[in-house]
C-alpha cells in the first residue's frame, strides 16, 4: 500500500462512519426518547437518558390505540395476502414457464400491465371497485387487489424455467400428477425465489398505509400503520412526541427483527424488486 492509497482508505473510512452515524441518529433518538419519562424532552437535561429509564410512554401509547388488535390485523392482512399470492403466483408461473397455449403472449402482456401501472396510483377506481363489490370495510377488501401479483409471477416463472425439464419428465414417468410435479419438482427447486417474493410482499404490505386507510373504517380490522396514523393525529404538542416515538417503535420492531434474522435474503430480494 502506498501512502496515497492509505490516505484514501482513511478518508473512505471516515466518510463511511460519518454517513452511517447520521443515518442511524433518527433511530437512536427515537429509542432514547421513547424510554424517557413523560414531559422530559431531549433538549432538557442529559441528551442521552432522562432522569430515569421508563416504559411509561409505551403505556400511554397503548392507551391511545389498541396495538394488540392492530398487530393481529396486520398479521392477518400480510399473511392472508401472501398465502393466496403463493398459490395464484405458482399456478400462473408454471403455466407461463412450461405450457404452450393459444394467446400465451397476449395474456402475459395483460398481466405485465400491473407492473407498468402500479396499483398504488389506481386508488380511486380500486376504491370504487371495492364499493361495487360491496366489500368496503372488510378484511377481504384489503387483500383482494394484491392476490394477483405480476411481480411474483415473473420471479417464479424465471426460477421454474431454470428447473431441468428432465426432472419434470422423470417425475411424470414415476406417475406423479400435475400437482405433485409442481410441488415436488418446481416448488422445492425455487425456494430462494419464494423467499425473495415473500420478503418483498410481507414488508411492502406491512408498511402500507394509503389503501388500508381508504378502504376500511372500523378499528377492528385496521392494520398497524393506520393505528400509528391515529397517534400522529393526536400528536400536536411537544409532550406527545414521546408517545409517538414509542408507538413508532411498536410498529417497526417486527420488521427490524425480521431483517436482522434474514439480512442477506432481504438485501437480495429487494435487489430483485426493482421490477416491481
Amino acid at each position: 500500500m502506498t501512502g496515497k492509497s492509505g490516505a484514501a482508505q482513511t478518508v473512505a473510512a471516515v466518510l463511511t462512519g460519518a454517513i452511517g452515524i447520521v443515518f442511524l441518529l433518527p433511530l437512536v433518538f427515537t429509542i432514547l426518547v421513547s424510554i424517557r419519562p413523560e414531559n422530559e424532552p431531549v433538549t432538557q437535561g442529559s441528551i442521552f437518558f432522562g432522569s430515569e429509564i421508563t416504559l411509561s410512554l409505551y403505556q400511554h401509547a397503548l392507551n391511545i390505540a389498541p396495538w394488540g388488535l392492530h398487530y393481529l390485523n396486520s398479521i392477518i392482512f400480510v399473511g392472508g395476502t401472501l398465502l393466496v399470492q403463493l398459490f395464484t403466483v405458482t399456478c400462473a408461473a408454471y403455466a407461463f414457464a412450461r405450457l404452450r397455449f393459444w394467446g400465451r403472449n397476449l395474456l402475459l402482456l395483460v398481466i405485465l400491465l400491473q407492473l407498468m401501472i402500479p396499483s398504488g396510483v389506481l386508488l380511486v377506481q380500486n376504491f370504487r371497485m371495492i364499493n361495487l363489490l360491496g366489500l368496503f370495510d372488510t378484511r377481504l377488501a384489503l387483500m383482494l387487489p394484491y392476490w394477483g401479483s405480476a411481480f411474483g409471477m415473473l420471479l417464479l416463472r424465471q426460477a421454474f424455467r431454470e428447473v431441468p425439464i428432465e426432472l419434470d419428465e422423470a417425475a411424470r414417468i414415476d406417475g406423479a400428477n400435475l400437482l405433485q410435479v409442481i410441488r415436488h419438482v418446481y416448488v422445492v427447486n425455487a425456494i430462494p425465489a419464494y423467499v425473495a417474493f415473500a420478503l418483498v410482499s410481507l414488508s411492502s404490505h406491512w408498511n402500507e398505509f394509503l389503501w388500508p386507510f381508504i378502504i376500511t373504517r372500523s378499528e377492528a380490522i385496521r392494520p398497524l400503520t393506520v393505528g400509528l396514523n391515529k397517534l400522529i393525529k393526536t400528536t400536536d404538542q411537544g409532550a406527545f412526541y414521546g408517545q409517538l416515538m414509542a408507538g413508532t417503535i411498536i410498529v417497526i420492531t417486527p420488521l427490524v427483527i425480521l431483517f436482522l434474522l434474514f439480512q442477506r435474503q432481504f438485501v437480495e430480494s429487494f435487489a430483485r424488486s426493482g421490477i416491481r
Partner: protein
Amino acid sequence: MIAKVWRARLIARLLPYLLIAPTFVLVLMFTVLPAFNTVNDSFYKPARGLNAAGKSPQFVHLQNFVDILDDSHYMGQRFLRSFRNTLIFALATVFVAVPLGLLLALLLNRPQRLLGIWRFAVFYPALLPLIGAASIWSFIFSDSIGLANAVLRSFGHPGLNWLGDRNLVLLSVIIVNIWKQAGYFMIFFLAGLQNIARELYEAAALDGADRFQQFMGLTLPLLRRTLLFVSVISFTFAFQTVEQLQALGEGGPADSANLLLYLIFQNIAERRNWGYVNAMTLVLIAVVLVFTLGNFLLFERSESER
C-alpha cells in the same frame, strides 16, 4: 374409453387457462378495468358523492382537464402546485439519493471493520413504513424540541420552522426521502459492482491508473446500465411515495409541499371532486406508464442481448 380420452384432452387444453385465471382475473379487476374507468370517468362530473342515487354523472368533455390545468381555478391551483412539487421531489431523488446510493455502494463494497453495522445503518430506513419514518422525522423537525433545531441552535442559529414554513416543508420531505431511499438504491449498485471482474481493476492498477481514474474509466462506464435503471425507478417511485406527508405537514401550508398522489388521496378520503380525482389520476398514470414502459423495454432488450 373414447370419452375418457376426450375428457383428458379437454382438460389438458383448458389447464393453462385455469392456472392463470386467478391472476388474470385479478389483474383485469384491479388494473385494466380501473385504468379504463379512470379514462372514462375523467370526462364526467358526478352528480354528487360516489354513487349518488338516481342521478347520472354529467358528461363534461375535457372540462375536468381544463379546470385542473387552470391556474385561476381552485383545483387547478392545487393540481399545478402539487405537480410542480412532485417533479421537484422526483428530480431531487434522482440527483441526490441515487448518487448517494452509488457512493454508499462504493464505500461499503470493501471488507472493513463494522461493515455489518454500516450496512444496517444505511439500509434500515428502506425497511420502515413510510409513515413510521415520517413520524420519526416529524419529531426531529419539530419546532421547539426537535433535533434539527437543537443542532442549529448549538451553532447560534435561531432554528427553523421545518414543517410550518411554506418554503421549507418540501425540503424537509425531500430530506426524509433521501434518507429513506439511498440505502435501497445502494443495493442495486452493490449488485452491479459485484459483477465487475476483479482482474479489470488489477489490470488498470498495473497500467498506473489511480483510484479516481479507475472509477471514471472503469466503474462508471460498467455501471451505466445500473445507473440508468436506478434513476428511472427512483423517478417513478417518487410519484408513488407520498404516505410520509401524513406526518410531515400534510402537504401544507396551502399545498406548498403537496404531492400529486397525496392530493388525490386527500380528495378520496374526503369523498370529494371525483371528476378531478380521475383526471389527476390519469395524468399520474401517464407519467408513470411512460417511464416504467421505457425502463421495461430497455430492461427486456438488455436481457435478450445477453
